[in-house]
């Protein structure tokens, strides 16, 4: 395959949080390097507290106070890369309707058509005029995903978007996400503490450890996505990864999902 310009090249030498009192500071990331190819679906897997969200916030441009640098490939038309962000909580404005929440992130002249499209794509066309407090948790997360895809992101950041949902809803939302991603291809950086979830979704797993957060292993997943519905197959892959990277066992045990 011909080398493609990576969608994201990040080299975070250090991210340190200053503590207001006591004077002690906390190093959240140290020497975290990552390269993500355009169109790739990468899962960042690691225990909670290893700096995954911190890393996403840096890439999203929300946190500029760090040592290191990162680059996003410009759009095909030369404009700056668009980043879509699905936060851990849906972060919908409760005082705006579903429709208005998505329209907010779009240029006004094309908002109406795109919003209708996206709502249909996530199966919420009927909910367009509801306010977020009227939605179920699962519906809110769909809207958050629709909002992120609506801007046709060059890079889609997802921060544990399926936590605090029941098993069936998680399965539905994973299918929905993969469906949207196939229809609207983009580069995805998906943060999770659940290696099984990462194995179901991603092309590649980047295993993190910390704090301070750093990459301990980079594992491609070659199994075709339509074969990943079998729990046994996922379990076999997971054990294989843990066997090859024994140093992860401590971290993986700490992050084992409670199911």
């Amino acid at each position, binding site marked *: 395959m011909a080398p493609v310009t990576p969608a994201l090249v990040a080299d975070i030498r250090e991210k340190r949080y200053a503590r207001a009192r006591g004077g002690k500071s906390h190093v959240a990331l140290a020497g975290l390097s990552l390269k993500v190819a355009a169109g790739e679906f990468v899962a960042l897997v690691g225990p909670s507290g290893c700096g995954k969200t911190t890393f996403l*916030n840096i890439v*999203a*441009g*929300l946190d500029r106070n760090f040592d290191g640098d990162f680059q996003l490939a410009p759009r095909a038309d030369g404009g700056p890369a*668009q*980043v*879509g*962000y699905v*936060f851990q*909580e849906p*972060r919908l*404005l*409760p*005082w*705006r309707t579903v429709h*208005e929440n998505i329209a*907010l*992130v779009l240029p006004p002249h094309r908002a109406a058509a795109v919003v209708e499209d996206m709502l249909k794509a996530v199966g919420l066309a009927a909910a367009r005029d509801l*306010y*977020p*407090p*009227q939605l179920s948790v699962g519906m809110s997360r769909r809207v958050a995903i629709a*909002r992120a895809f609506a*801007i046709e992101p060059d890079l889609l950041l997802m921060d544990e978007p399926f936590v605090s949902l029941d098993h069936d809803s998680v399965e539905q939302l994973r299918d929905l996400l993969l469906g949207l991603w196939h229809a609207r291809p983009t580069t995805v950086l998906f943060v999770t503490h659940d290696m099984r979830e990462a194995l179901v979704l991603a092309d590649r797993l980047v295993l993190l450890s910390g704090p301070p957060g750093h990459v301990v292993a980079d594992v491609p997943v070659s199994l075709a996505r339509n074969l990943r519905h079998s729990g046994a197959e996922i379990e076999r892959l997971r054990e294989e990864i843990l066997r090859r990277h024994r140093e992860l066992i401590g971290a993986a045990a700490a992050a084992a999902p409670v199911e």
Partner: protein
Amino acid sequence: MSTATGQRASPWAAASSLAQRVGSVALFIAVWQIAADAVHSRLLPSASAVFVVLARECVHGPLLFNLGITLARVAAAFIVAMALGTAIGIVMGRSRTIDALFDSWLVLLLNLPALVIIVLAYVWFGLTEAAAIGAVAVNKIPNTAVTLREGARALDRSYSDMAASFHVGRWRTLRHVIMPQLYPYIFAAARSGLALVWKIVLIVELLGRSNGVGFQIQLYFQQFDVTRILAYSIAFMLVIQLIEWAIFQPLERRAARWRQ
């Protein structure tokens, strides 16, 4: 659906609360009428006498003209005070440095008696309309600023981060993300603001204007015409209450739609 039942229930609640209010006002007028009849003095005119004068003044006297003048001053001072107070409050709520620098100024201004501000405004800037309105506004600005500073401090960072990560522009962020979080504080400031502003406008008129409800009340005070003083007060109170019902309450309901 829950919203539908909510809307169906509210007219009943509104009707019952309206009945209670009307009953309460009727009781007050009855007590007043009985007391006036018992005292039988020119200094405590009966309710009926006051309402007769009120009606006559509306039709033949200068009441409506003066009411209009006073309302215009109230509106001007209110708008200036709300605009400046809101801006100052937001800036102070967002910036620790500016807050530390000007907090004492705010405390000073809050504790400065309204009368002192009015007198100083007239002494320094002359007996002008601008001095009058400015003096009233300065009385209200620190109040609004303190309330809005609380609001600005309570802004939820996660929404601003969301807007920033999606590159929602400054103006749209202000309109859709920031302001809706401040509306409850703005309404609180506006409510107490209107009550404060109209009372101070009367004093400003009494001290340095030659028209308006405050000026008229001074005139009738010199003539010991309590009937007209009460007639003017009632007219003005009714208008202020009307503003509350016709403007503030609908706006507040609109802003709180999503909470239903």
